[in-house]
């Protein structure tokens, strides 16, 4: 919904909250349900009601628990029956500098005394996190701290031992250190947020005295948005691709008219510099695993001429797809999406032409669009939008672009074969299919939480739930990696089954869409049957739960030779397979023959 996309108007959101919520709930979209406990050191009602809107808009239907005012610590450390029975999927701890109880009090304190305060204050929070993880083993989002509005000692406050700002900055470092060492623990960076909106706008002491609001009401939507972005990222709802126009978006001028010498890119002019900075900025996204694509009304030859400009930071190789032609842009985006196996709604389209933006927005449901009015506005919008909010960085993220490039080479090779089986054999595929190894757990969790299409149950697992499954003696787990002569695709398939006497119930079966039609699912099935036989299991039950996105696997179990047991009106189905006479189905992938690197 437009009102909820960055940059949003906070005042409108606050004033029309009820009607916006009503509209969202009536829009017919299917949402995942999540239980969110908000433990606050200040009033949290408005934070929760704004967060609700943003989450609904991200496809998450939240149910909230709120601690009593300022009872965050008691709830976490001593527990509360309400919180226990609520059993949260995720916990947000909304504390601020107002909740720091051990701040330095006087310049007469020694550095050692200040250090004790710092350690004590950090222990106070850490104790809470440990207790929460022990009890709920779920992700925790924790605010860091904003700088104060008032200072006694001017600049000295930022660096003197007894400075409040200095103390807060040190606390923030301790929080970040903890976050880096603990999976499933995320910082909501209100130190950045309060800076970016400005401390004078962030703080509202009157609102604290009157209502125990720790931030000005007007900023609450910004705060709530920031938390909502972390949550949707944890549940795999990030965008994946930035699809870029060329003329006056990646460089100044029109390549078709101005020629390679005529476009502005590089250090010679101010305009050229701004485009260089923009390209460098975009390349930074690529390093985090965001894919880049081009969608431009141009002759392809000219498009490549522009990208091969000596000063162009982005080169043709940086893009997973380059569509430079005179077709409509929405069709080009759909095509890029099809070719890469991604959903068009995971694209962010950037164009300087507002008419193109409007068409794309109207034609492709749920796509995100950035109308570039200036390079700096576009960079700001991309930074603050949360499209690509990072909550973990896996090895896979760092190499994603190469993997998609390798896919393009495979497609090219396919054209030289008449027989698909011959093509598959020519790829020289090797798979490693194993139990969940610790080195892959992060990637397994990430893949599990973001795979929508090739996913029979679309069941999501938090990092800690995944760790539990990994330890469980009652589960069979498979993690499949696939490589071929064009490159290593990394972990691409995950299967989890629960054993019940001589039957295995499939709780999760998913595969990355970048390895569709390679028979990897057959290799996984062969391995699953093998594991089942080792445990004396003779029957496998498969479940398909229909979502708006997983139609491609509605008949997966049927294609494996399972028998349909039942099918609900809503499209869900149950399947079974007697494995006593099962014969291996994969004939094109070599399994567990080759050593895979574990880095």
């Amino acid at each position, binding site marked *: 919904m437009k009102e909820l996309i960055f940059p949003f108007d906070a005042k409108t959101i*606050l*004033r*029309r909250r009820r*009607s916006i919520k*009503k509209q969202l709930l009536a829009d017919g979209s299917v949402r995942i349900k999540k239980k969110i406990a908000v433990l606050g050191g200040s009033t949290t009602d408005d934070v929760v009601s704004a967060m609700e809107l943003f989450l609904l808009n991200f496809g998450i239907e939240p149910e909230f628990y709120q601690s009593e005012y300022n009872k965050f610590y008691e709830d976490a450390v001593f527990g509360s029956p309400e919180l226990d029975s609520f059993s949260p999927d995720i916990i947000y701890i909304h504390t601020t500098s107002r909740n720091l109880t051990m701040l330095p009090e006087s310049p007469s304190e020694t550095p050692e005394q200040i250090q004790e305060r710092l350690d004590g204050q950090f222990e106070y929070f850490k104790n809470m996190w440990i207790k929460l993880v022990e009890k709920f083993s779920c992700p925790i989002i924790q605010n860091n701290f904003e700088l104060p509005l008032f200072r006694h000692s001017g600049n000295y406050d930022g660096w003197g031992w007894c400075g409040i700002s200095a103390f807060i900055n040190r606390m923030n470092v301790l929080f970040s250190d903890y976050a880096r060492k603990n999976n499933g623990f995320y910082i909501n960076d209100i130190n950045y947020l309060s800076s970016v909106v400005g401390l004078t706008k962030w703080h509202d002491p009157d609102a604290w005295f*009157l209502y125990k*609001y720790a931030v000005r*009401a007007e900023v609450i939507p910004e705060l709530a948005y920031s938390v909502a972005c972390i949550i949707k990222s944890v549940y795999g709802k990030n965008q994946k691709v930035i699809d870029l126009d060329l003329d006056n978006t990646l460089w100044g001028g029109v390549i078709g008219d101005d020629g390679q010498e005529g476009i502005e890119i590089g250090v010679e002019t101010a305009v050229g510099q701004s485009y260089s900075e923009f390209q460098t900025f975009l390349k930074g996204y690529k390093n985090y695993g965001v894919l880049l694509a081009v969608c431009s009304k141009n002759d392809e030859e000219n498009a490549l001429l522009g990208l091969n400009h000596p000063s162009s930071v982005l080169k043709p190789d940086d893009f997973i797809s380059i569509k430079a032609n005179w077709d409509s842009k929405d069709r080009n985006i759909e095509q890029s999406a099809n070719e890469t196996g991604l959903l068009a709604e995971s694209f962010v389209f950037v164009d300087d032409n507002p008419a193109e933006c409007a068409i794309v927005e109207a034609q492709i449901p749920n796509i995100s669009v950035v109308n570039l009015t200036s390079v700096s506005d576009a960079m700001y919008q991309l930074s603050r939008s949360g499209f690509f909010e990072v909550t973990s960085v896996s090895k896979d993220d760092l190499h994603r672009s190469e993997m998609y490039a390798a896919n393009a080479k495979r497609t090219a090779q396919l054209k030289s074969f008449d027989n698909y089986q011959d093509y598959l054999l020519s790829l020289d595929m090797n798979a490693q299919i194993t139990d969940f190894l610790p080195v892959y757990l992060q990637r397994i969790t990430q893949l599990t939480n973001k795979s929508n299409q090739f996913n029979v149950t679309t069941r999501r697992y938090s990092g800690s739930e995944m760790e539990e499954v990994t330890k469980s003696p009652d589960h069979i787990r498979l993690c499949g990696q696939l490589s071929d002569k064009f490159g290593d695709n990394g972990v691409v398939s995950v299967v989890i089954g629960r054993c019940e006497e001589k039957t295995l119930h499939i709780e999760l079966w998913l595969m990355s869409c970048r390895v569709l039609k390679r028979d990897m699912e057959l290799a996984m099935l062969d391995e699953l049957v093998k594991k089942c036989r080792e445990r004396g299991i003779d029957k496998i039950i498969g479940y398909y739960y229909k979502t708006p996105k997983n139609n491609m696997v509605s008949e997966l179990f049927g294609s494996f030779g399972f028998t349909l047991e039942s099918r609900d009106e809503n499209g869900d189905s149950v399947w079974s397979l007697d494995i006593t006479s099962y014969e291996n189905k994969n004939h094109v992938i070599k399994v567990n023959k080759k050593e895979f690197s574990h880095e």
Partner: protein
Amino acid sequence: MNKNEIIKRLTEVFRDIFDDDSIVITEKTTANDIDDWDSIEHINLIGAVEDEFGMRFKMREVSGMKNVGEMIDIISKRGK
């Protein structure tokens, strides 16, 4: 600013906040007259009224207002 104009604009604010187009307010209206007007919505309402009239209530005023009439009196003095 005259009272009628203030009431007209205030009515819009109330209707947005409580998402109820049937709300009619008078100087005598209090929180008891509107179902959803609890302490939390009160904070929201105050904020939205402040935005609408480009002014801030003083702390004493926020905690002291007894009905919409008193709110109108304050707005008529400082509102824009």
